[in-house]
């Protein structure tokens, strides 16, 4: 996703000299070409995220569209008040890019686990929050946020699912992508974990469960229509996010359903319930550990639908990781 982003940004910067990229001292190898090619549109602001965000606001006020770039929590939590008061309140064209969503940097430790950003940022007014599910979405989202006035957040993660878009497909912010059709249940995923969702859906099909899969790449504004249709047209909703269960995608979907009084026949939120992970490991490992892997998702959906499935050692993990009862 990161590469898709920077590739697209390069094209955009080429055609529009007002597009700018500021990094907070990150992006070795990744941003080098961009920096060399567009020296006037690139800036390393040093390890100083608050200043980076303020700078971006000032530059945006002078007519630029400024992408700020860093890892995980740094461009978000470290400068949240700057995002809110400076960028958002001034409707500044600041586009915050965080690489390393979720457990992308799983082995690096909790400082690098970006697992609360969606809840935090969607609470802010005047911001668009986007978490693409694959490289194609990441590239398209880059163009889309450039063309969306005001402050936007782009959460990229490391997982590398093959993109599933059709050649003719058009990406639209705020509109969920139908990644797979099905009627038995709807799986709504945000971010790179979409790949897990799609694989789970394949497996479920083998169990005779036809799963609709929506890529909810835009968390704010939310595609309430797609959610309500899923409630009405399919057997229920399961949300999937590599993110805390509190206030993120699952929370937003729950709000939507209850606000509208349109209740999904079945409902489950899959996300992180265990708090900080002082245990480290690869993204794949941590997904498995916290019930966000393919097997756990399959098991959770079977369980929700009251279907037995070929369970070996999965059950205990399910109840630990994704137990729905609060």
């Amino acid at each position, binding site marked *: 996703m990161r590469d898709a982003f920077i590739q697209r940004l390069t094209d955009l910067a080429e055609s529009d000299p007002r597009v700018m990229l500021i990094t907070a001292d990150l992006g070795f190898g990744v941003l080098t070409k961009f920096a060399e090619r567009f020296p006037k549109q690139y800036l390393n602001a*040093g390890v100083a995220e*608050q*200043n980076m*965000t*303020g700078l971006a606001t*000032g530059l945006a006020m002078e007519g*630029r569209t400024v992408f700020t770039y860093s890892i995980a929590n740094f461009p978000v939590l470290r400068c949240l008040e700057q995002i809110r008061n400076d960028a958002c309140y001034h409707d500044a064209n600041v586009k915050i890019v965080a690489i390393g969503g979720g457990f992308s940097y799983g082995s690096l430790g909790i400082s690098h686990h970006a697992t609360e950003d969606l809840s935090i940022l969607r609470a802010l007014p005047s911001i668009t929050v986007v978490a693409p599910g694959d490289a194609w979405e990441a590239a398209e989202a880059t163009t889309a946020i450039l063309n969306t006035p005001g402050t936007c957040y782009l959460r990229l993660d490391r997982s590398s699912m093959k993109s599933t878009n059709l050649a003719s497909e058009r990406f639209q912010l705020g509109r969920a992508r139908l990644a797979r059709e099905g009627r038995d249940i709807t799986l709504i995923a945000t971010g790179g974990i979409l790949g897990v969702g799609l694989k789970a859906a394949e497996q479920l099909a083998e169990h005779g469960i036809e799963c609709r899969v929506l890529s909810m790449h835009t968390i704010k504004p939310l595609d309430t229509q797609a959610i309500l249709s899923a409630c009405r047209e399919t057997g229920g909703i399961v949300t999937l996010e590599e993110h805390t269960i509190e206030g993120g995608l699952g929370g937003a979907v729950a709000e939507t359903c209850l606000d509208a009084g349109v209740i999904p026949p079945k409902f489950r939120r899959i996300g992180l319930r265990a708090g900080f992970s002082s245990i480290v490991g690869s993204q794949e490992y941590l997904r498995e550990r916290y019930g966000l892997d393919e097997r756990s998702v399959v098991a959770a959906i079977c369980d929700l639908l009251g279907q037995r499935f070929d369970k070996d050692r999965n059950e205990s993990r399910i109840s630990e990781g994704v137990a729905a009862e609060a």
Partner: protein
Amino acid sequence: MSAARYESSTVVDTRAHHANGTGARPGGHAPESLKDTTALARRVRQHVVRMTSKGVSAHVGSCLSIADIMAVLYGEVLNVDPAVPQWTERDRFILSKGHAGACVYATLAESGFFPISRLDDHYQNGSNLSGHVSHKGIPGVELSTGSLGHGLSVGAGMALGAKTDGQRHRVFVLMSDGECDEGSNWEAILFAAHHKLDNLIAIVDYNKLQSLKSVEETLALEPFADKWRSFGWSVVEIDGHDHASLKSTLSSAPIESGKPTCVIAHTVKGKGVSFMEHSVLWHYRTACGDEYDAAMLELEPPL
């Protein structure tokens, strides 16, 4: 005279010739070379005492502290045009100590950005004129602030943008001394020097008081000028109530080419109203009744 109402007051033409000026403003008014900034500062002081009294709001001391700086900036220094507030070549001014918003509103109104009668709305229900300075619906305000330590970074961004675009206007950021506790400022200070933003001028309202106690007692800043210098800025210390030195310093900034300028303005919190001076109390307190009368009396034009 105890009612906090506005008397009509003539709008001063504040559009002075700018030292670095790049020519006429688009509004079509002829610039004048000398303004009575003393009178302007006095009117601004009267406004802020009235406004905070009417709104029963805090920060009158913080406003009085910068009235002279604001009067000289808008009366003599800034190349701005109230008729075209968004004029591209204007100088940018940011109040980073946003709690002195009343002083910005008063100065802008006196400078013709919007009717003085609007000042009556300050702090009132349904108004845009929030206690901390806000840009929404208020011509002439570049940046909304209120949380300390935001303005300098944004100003640095504006200054960098201007430089990259080959523009010649300047960016002024007015900060408070207590605000310099915030690390975000030191990030911006380090950055601005590294990028040689000599079109960026930080003015510190060094009134020696913060919210609860003196700067000295809270987090002492001395040797203050050394701090800025060691971060690569040119520094000048002046009397922040002396219009002549304010004018010459601010008009001629930058002090050195290739370096951002820090003007440490030694001021008195509450300046102009004797019983408000040097007092933390008047960071919060509102002048009402006799106190209001006494304050306004001190701010009357001298015979």
